[in-house]
C-alpha cells in the first residue's frame, strides 16, 4: 500500500496534465466542495457539469472557480439525467485534449487515491476504458442487490458480464471517448457504455476501488419514507 502511494505520487506529478476529471453533479451541495478540493490537491483538471440542480451546487462550484484555474463549470438549464450530463462532460473534456478522461461521482463515495488505479492502465496503453469496481460485499444489501440485477440486465442486453456495470468511476482514453455513441439520458448510460466497448472492440479493464459509505450517501436510500419516495418515482418513471 505504501509503495502504491509513493508510486501514485510520482504518477500524478508526471501525468496530472494528461488527466481530466468529469464530475456530473445533481443536488450535491453538501459534498461537492470537499470532492473538488480533493481533486484539485492532486493538480488535476476538473470539469463539473451541474445537471440543473435545485440546491446551491452551481453557486458553490462557481465560487470555487476563483481559487483554481484547473476547474471549469458547465450547467444544464434543466435536469436531463446522468447520461446526458456525462455526455456534456466528456465533450467538454475532449476540448482539453487529455490522454485520460475520468468520470467521478460528486457525492463523495469515491476515493481520490483510486484515480491512480483507474488511469494507469490507460496511460500505459493497456486499456481503452477502465471501470472501477466496487466491492458488493461491503455494500448495503439494497444497493448490492440492485447492482447485481443491473449486471444481469447488462449481460442480457449487451451480451457481456462485467463485475460492476453501474459504477460511476470510470476512465477512458480519447479513442474510447470519441467512439462511444451514447443515447441513454439516465442511469442506463452505464450499461450502454459496456455495450459500446464491445461494439467498437475497445479494451476494457476492471480494477477494484474503495467505496466510502458516509451517512450522507447512505441516507439517500434508507428509511421507509425514502423507500416510498423511490417507489413513487419508479411508478412515475413507468408512465413517463
Amino acid at each position, binding site marked *: 500500500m505504501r509503495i502504491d502511494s509513493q508510486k501514485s505520487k510520482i504518477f500524478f506529478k508526471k501525468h496530472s496534465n494528461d488527466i481530466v476529471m468529469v464530475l456530473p453533479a445533481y443536488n450535491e451541495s453538501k459534498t461537492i466542495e470537499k470532492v473538488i478540493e480533493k481533486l484539485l490537491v492532486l493538480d488535476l483538471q476538473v470539469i463539473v*457539469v451541474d445537471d*440543473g440542480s435545485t440546491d446551491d451546487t452551481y453557486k458553490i462550484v*462557481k465560487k470555487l*472557480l*476563483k*481559487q*483554481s*484555474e484547473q*476547474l*471549469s*463549470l*458547465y*450547467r*444544464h*438549464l*434543466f435536469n*436531463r439525467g446522468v*447520461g*446526458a450530463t456525462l*455526455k*456534456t462532460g466528456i*465533450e*467538454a473534456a475532449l476540448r482539453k485534449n487529455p490522454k485520460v478522461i475520468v468520470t467521478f461521482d460528486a457525492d463523495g463515495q469515491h476515493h481520490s487515491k483510486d484515480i491512480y488505479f483507474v488511469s494507469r492502465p490507460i496511460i500505459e496503453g493497456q486499456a481503452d476504458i477502465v471501470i472501477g469496481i466496487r466491492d458488493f460485499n461491503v455494500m448495503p444489501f439494497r444497493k448490492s442487490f440492485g447492482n447485481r440485477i443491473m449486471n444481469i*440486465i447488462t449481460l442480457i*442486453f*449487451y451480451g457481456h458480464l462485467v463485475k460492476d456495470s453501474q459504477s460511476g468511476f470510470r476512465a477512458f482514453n480519447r479513442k474510447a471517448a470519441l467512439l462511444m455513441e*451514447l*443515447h*441513454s*439520458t*439516465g442511469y*442506463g*448510460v452505464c450499461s*450502454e457504455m459496456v*455495450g459500446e466497448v464491445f461494439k467498437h472492440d475497445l479494451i476494457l479493464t476492471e480494477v477494484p476501488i474503495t467505496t466510502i459509505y458516509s451517512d450522507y450517501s447512505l441516507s439517500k436510500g434508507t428509511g421507509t419514507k425514502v423507500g416510498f419516495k423511490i417507489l413513487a418515482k*419508479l411508478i412515475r*418513471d*413507468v408512465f*413517463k
Partner: protein
Amino acid sequence: MMLHLYQYLGILLGVMALIFTLIRFRNGKLSLGMLGLWIGVWLIVILISIFPDVTSTLAIIIGIGRGLDVILIIGLIGCYYLIFRIYNMIENIEEEINLLVRQIALEKGLSSEDQD
C-alpha cells in the same frame, strides 16, 4: 389446435413488437420501467392470440355482448396507434431538449478566467 389467420397475425404482431421494444431498450431509447410495461402489453397480445377463448370468459364475467366487440377492437387499435405516435413524438422532443440543454451548457462553460 387449429389457429385462425387473425391469431397468426396477432402472434406475428406481438413478436415483432417485442423485438422492436427490446432493440429500442438496447439503443438506450427506452427506460427500464417502460421496457417492463411494453413487454407486458405485447405478451398479453401474444397470449390472447393463442388462447382467444380467454376473452370470451372475460366478456361473460364483465357482461359485454359480442356486438360491441368490433367497435371496441377498432377503437383500441386506434388508441394504441395514437399512444405509440405520441410516445415517439415526446421522445423526439426530449432528445431535442437534451441537445439544446447540452449545447447551451457547452457554450456557456465557465472557468476561472471568466470570473470578474
